[in-house]
């Protein structure tokens, strides 16, 4: 008796990962059961099987629109993350620039970027340009802020060491700053990239004639819940997949990061 209690206190019956798996399964079962049993109206929450059926049944349509969305995402990501990370590296490594621009950038982050979208559609029309511009702006600030912060947290000792070896300015940037900032740059890319993906889809939801977001909005006005959920599911999968991909790269480059930093040794 007391033995059993002791062991159960020391080690819960299930590992957290197992409980998470069970929770996930429970959510899937509820997703199927609640609408089927009529406990939740089908309009609010279409059953899982219906959602998947909608996705498979209209696979060709989703696929065609996904292509448009992906193209816009690709371009916007290049612009947002390229500009954001590039400017972040530049501003972060030049102290006077950083001191003046960093507060401004994080102040501008407070502006709800969505309100710019009507302006972009007025300027660029409802074609792909306006959603690319919107998603680029939407994803750029987190990239910029994250990279700047990453550069700032780099141990100054690393730079002193490089100077003691007479590294040139470019060698310092390429061989020290960049690798040291890599983990933070990648996590900035992860946040910014997710925003770019959703930025494109949201722009399509608001005003557009093609893309996954457009499909979601069209099916919403038709009150076709399974197709709406199928579209959302697709986008969520896209975001999660992107996040997992970047995390994989992060893990490969950053295996050293979660251990000692100079100043903590000893």
């Amino acid at each position, binding site marked *: 008796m007391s033995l059993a209690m002791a062991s159960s206190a020391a080690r819960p019956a299930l590992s957290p990962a197992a409980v998470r798996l069970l929770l996930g399964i429970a959510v899937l079962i509820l997703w199927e059961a609640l609408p089927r049993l009529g406990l939740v109206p089908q309009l609010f929450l279409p059953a899982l099987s219906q959602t998947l059926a909608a996705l498979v049944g209209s696979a060709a349509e989703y696929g065609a629109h996904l292509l448009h969305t992906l193209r816009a995402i690709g371009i916007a990501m290049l612009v947002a993350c390229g500009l954001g990370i590039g400017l972040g590296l530049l501003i972060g490594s030049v102290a006077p620039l950083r*001191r003046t621009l960093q507060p401004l950038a994080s102040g501008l982050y*407070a502006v709800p*970027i969505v309100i710019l*979208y009507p302006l972009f559609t007025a300027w660029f029309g409802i074609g792909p340009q306006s959603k690319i511009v919107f998603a680029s702006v939407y994803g750029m600030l987190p990239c910029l802020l994250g990279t700047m912060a990453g550069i700032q947290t780099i141990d100054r000792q690393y730079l002193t060491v490089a100077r003691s070896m007479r590294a040139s300015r470019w060698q310092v940037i390429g061989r020290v700053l960049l690798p040291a900032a890599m983990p933070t740059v990648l996590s900035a890319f992860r946040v910014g990239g997710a*925003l770019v993906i959703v*930025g494109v889809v949201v722009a399509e939801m*608001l005003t557009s004639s093609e893309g996954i977001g457009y499909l979601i909005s069209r099916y919403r006005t038709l009150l076709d*819940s399974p197709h709406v959920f199928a579209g959302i599911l697709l986008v969520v999968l896209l975001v999660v997949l992107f996040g997992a991909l970047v995390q994989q790269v992060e893990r490969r480059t950053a295996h050293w990061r979660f251990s000692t930093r100079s100043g903590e040794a000893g």
Partner: protein
Amino acid sequence: MAAAFRRSAARRLGGLLSWIGLVGAIAAAWQASLWFGVMTPELLPPIGEVLATAVSLLGRPAFLASVGVTLAEVLVAFAIAVPLGVALGFAISESSYWSAILKPIVFLIFSIPKTIFLPMFILAFGINFGQKVGFGVFSTIFIVLISSFSALDSVKSDHVRVARAYGASPWQIAWRVYMPAMAPILLEAVRLAMIFNLTGILLAEMYASRAGLGQLIASWGENYMLKELLAGILLIAAAAILFNEAVRWFEARCEHWRS
């Protein structure tokens, strides 16, 4: 002491100057693009006219009514999401077992931008005040949860142990050890929560709504009323930045003992 005060005053002045510089640069680029014909006045009305429109908007009852609707939604969502998020965050952190289970889930959901779920809220709640508030809460609560996790993590167990050794009561520990350590992070959470909240609610209004600032902005865009649209954008941006800077100023005051 006096020197430190002067330094922080100088920094604040510097911050103000760089904001003035930024506004000046935007205004200059704005006017220059008109002079050099990059933009036409139809697409980008002169800045003076837009500012005049902004001032006149502030006197229009219809505009003020929209502001009132949005403000009400934002405040109600905020008043629900922040206490709820903090309470849930603390409750989850209370058990190391449940935080091992739930924290990864919270972080996963946090990493998915919430705006994509907006159509689900419309299907479930229709288009009304409750739906906007619900979406605002949903957009906000995960950042509050995560902030309260890290707020609790920031409390040093050494400090708690010292307080306990000197016979502090649980309440005294909560107020005199936990609160000062957590305050900066919780303030940061409030600031970020407001950003997420405002974005969520404006989007909800733009997407499908009969009232509110977001709806107004969207309809100005559709009808090519660029003077009003730009004036509205400037007003919202200015309000958001002012709120943000105010909280940051307060954060800096609370954080003087750090670093």
